[in-house]
């Protein structure tokens, strides 16, 4: 029922649709251009053959560390709590593991997003930092940095 699929130039507009209803932040053209070249790091989630979710991440090599950063991971409201988020997150964790040189997986979560917090904590993520005024146009503007160490 739940499957992951490729994001291609043919269907990338579906990702825009998804993100525009799932996230309060909007992403620029460059984001979508990069997605097309990121292979397994960007995936759609299909539920009964319909695109209902998407995950996009990238390798972050700053500070002499190799980390996997989750840029977006979300699914349509009507399709939550069905395990779709789990499938996407597991995919990310597996990518990180197979890479072999990834220290950790991390992401930002708006501090009032209890659902996401509960979701990520379930998988062993921990708050390592609070960034104030991380978001520019939305309230509250603070974000937690969540991380799961692999090594």
């Amino acid at each position, binding site marked *: 029922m739940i499957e992951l699929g490729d994001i291609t130039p043919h*269907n990338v507009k579906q990702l825009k649709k998804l993100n525009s209803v799932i996230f309060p932040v909007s992403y620029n053209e460059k984001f979508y251009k990069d997605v097309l070249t990121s292979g397994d790091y960007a995936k759609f989630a299909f539920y*009964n053959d319909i695109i209902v979710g998407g995950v996009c991440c990238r390798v972050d090599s700053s500070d002499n560390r190799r980390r996997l950063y989750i840029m977006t991971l979300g699914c*349509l409201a*009507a*399709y939550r709590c069905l395990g779709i988020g789990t499938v996407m997150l597991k995919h990310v964790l597996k990518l990180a593991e197979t890479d072999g040189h990834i220290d950790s997986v991390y992401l930002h979560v708006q501090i009032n997003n209890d659902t996401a917090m509960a979701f990520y904590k379930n998988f062993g993520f921990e708050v390592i930092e609070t960034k104030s005024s991380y978001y520019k146009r939305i309230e509250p503007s603070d974000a937690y940095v969540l991380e799961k160490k692999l090594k």
Partner: protein
Amino acid sequence: MPSQLPPKENNLFKRVVKCYEQKQYKNGLKFAKQILSTPKYADHGETLAMKGLILNCLGKKEEAFDLVRRGLRNDLKSQVCWHVFGLLQRSEKKYDEAIKCYRNALKWDKDNLQILRDLSLLQIQMRDLEGYRDTRYQLLKLRPGQRASWIGYSMACHLLEDFDTALAVLEEYRKTQEVKSYDYEFSEFLLYQNSVYREAGRNKDCLEHLEKYEKQICDQVSIMEVKAIVSYNLGLKDKAEKYYRQLIDRNPSNNDYYTGLVKVLELSTDEMMANLYSEFVEKYKYSHAPKLLRLQVTSGDTFKRYVGDYIKHALRRGSPPLFLNIRPLLKDKTKAKIIEELVLDYSHNLKNHSKLLTDDENKEPPTTYLWTLFFLAQYYDHFRKLDVAMKYVEEVLDHTPTLIEGYTLQAKIYKHADNLQLAAKLMDEARSLDTADRYINSKSAKYQLKIDNIEKAEETCAMFTREGVSAIENLNEMQCMWFQTECAASFLRQGKIGEALKKCHEIDKHFTDIIEDQFDFHTYCMRKMTLKAYISMLRMEDILRSHPFYFKCAVLAIQAYVSLHDNPITETEEDTEVNSDGLTAKELKKLKSKQRRAKKKAELKEEKKADSKDTNDKKKADDNAEPKLDPKKLVQIPDPLDQAIKFLRPLQDWSAETIDTHLYAFDIYYRKGKYLLMLQSLKRARNIDSQNPQLHINIVKFALAVKAKADLNKAVSQVVETELEVLLEGMKLQEFNDNFIERNKNSIAHQSAGAEALNILNPSASDRVLQLCCNLSYDHIETELPVCAKVYKNLQKDTFGKVPESVIETYRKSCSQLFPLAAVFQDNQTASETNEVVSSLSELSVK
């Protein structure tokens, strides 16, 4: 002039022929020159002819015809000259002429196999069936050892319905065949032979033949199907039942097998049928056919239970064709109501409990709810409750904004609501979500054409057409008729009659080409033994222009020509080519200036294109022998109505059961003043639907025309008088109209037709006319948008007499309340708001 050459020259001549056959045209010409340069043989007919033939192959048509004619004149008794002349005519597609040439050639060489074969091809192509039979007989006599001889002759007899001869010849041939274990060609032959038995009505022979040769026939399904039908025809019920059951077992999704079985078992009541279908529903759990058939013959609570099961299952599976399967049931109002209530109940339960029924055990996945909403949107769209449909489709897209079908459905609803701008926008939105889907790509192009955005439509199609050629050219090459038809309709709306006609002629040419293309199959099929397919191809080609695509194209062409007749375009005003039909003077002026501007722009663009084109392209254009259709020339014709008749004829021949055929015929003949033909079209239309609104208006117009015409020929006038009485059902004209209005009280289409007729009959009765045509209090008026839009346009066109602005404005306002989405009824402000929505839509989606 002697036709016989001396040995040396004769040898050269033989080499010319050989070179021609091997396509060594240069050498052929060289040898021919050698003969012709001998003064004594400079006029040698057959050499001249051969030279001409070769030149024709090199594209030098004129010179070729010259030479061949000269050759023929010099040697009228030469089969070679006649044959060559025939070949030239054939290459010009003048088949009748070519046949004559071949016949002349045969006069001088009656057993020439090559000529006989060529002749037979032309004869079957032209459906000169008797000629074909005679030629094939000749060939059979000359070459009894060849398979094609036997098959060809029997096929000719078959087509002439001389079944006995056909069967006798086929049987003779069969006897000569050795039986091998797997021989597909022989299997095809047997099936063909069998089909002739069946067509001859020799059911018993047909069945015996099958039973005897069953083992050698590869196509098992065909065998069973024929066995079932023929057994039934022979009254062998047990056998027929057995075969039908076997067929169903093989393919439980074929409706024909079930209906065949019902016939065999002589099931007369719905209940008996339902029981039979139930048996198969149990047996073939995954097959839709018996379930859907059962829904046709059940009613009340039983129906409710079955249809509920069916729909629930499909909603869970998420099968979009669900509505398509259910749609035939909606003709029955009670069933429609049951379905509506059931699905509304599902949607309610799903929304509140995530269950289809409150006492279901398990929760449903979100997609079940999604498809339930989707179904409801389709349902209400079907019944043109467009506001409700719109509400549901919006819920669909809120629920799952990535569902592409949601956007296409919303586009369709907007189309039905007569807001084509938004419809096109949404269809393009759908397209952009999956640019690899050609179906949606085409849909989007089609919707662009509906808003007369031909350029965008072309751009859209170009994403899939071959690179390097313009999409328009490529689509023409690929005989993409839906595209060309929509283009024609758009040009016609824009008043670009010439362009519209160009498209219509291009489509017409596709049909001609398809008929032309048969040529290749006459020999191919015979060689490959695909005889049954061949026969059905011939029969299909015979009625090719009965195709709905042709109908659409012909109707557009007729409308274009009729409007040309009404508003001829002279050379001086060619650039003001407008269809003034239905436009006010102001609008006309605006349109004309708009067209002038557009034309200038187009010309500029054209110039640019021409500049950038390299010489290569030009050469290609030269090679293209087909004369290009020129929109300007197409409108400058003296006889538009006669041109219209050319498109009408095939409709009269092949689409006579469609009332529009006869309504258009009337339009043409009325303008031509042909009373008997008008009468004929009226009578034919009346036989289809005596209460058709347009027919009613036509009858009134006809009656008045007859009255006004004093100098009708006596005999004609007598016929017309008598028949007119029949048309008017013995009533006076006024009474006839009153009666029509009274009889069709509840139909807005009829009432407005009555009003139109009343205005023609009595222009001073305007109060009553307006009362009739502006009335909007009917049951289900919300489903009558097309008629209301037509009435509104007719009000502006003075079809109902001179109508005060205020009346028109009141009508518009009432309609805009009834049809809030419809663009026609929107005032300027709402229209510009729509435009804003249109432009903001694209931004929204990229947010």
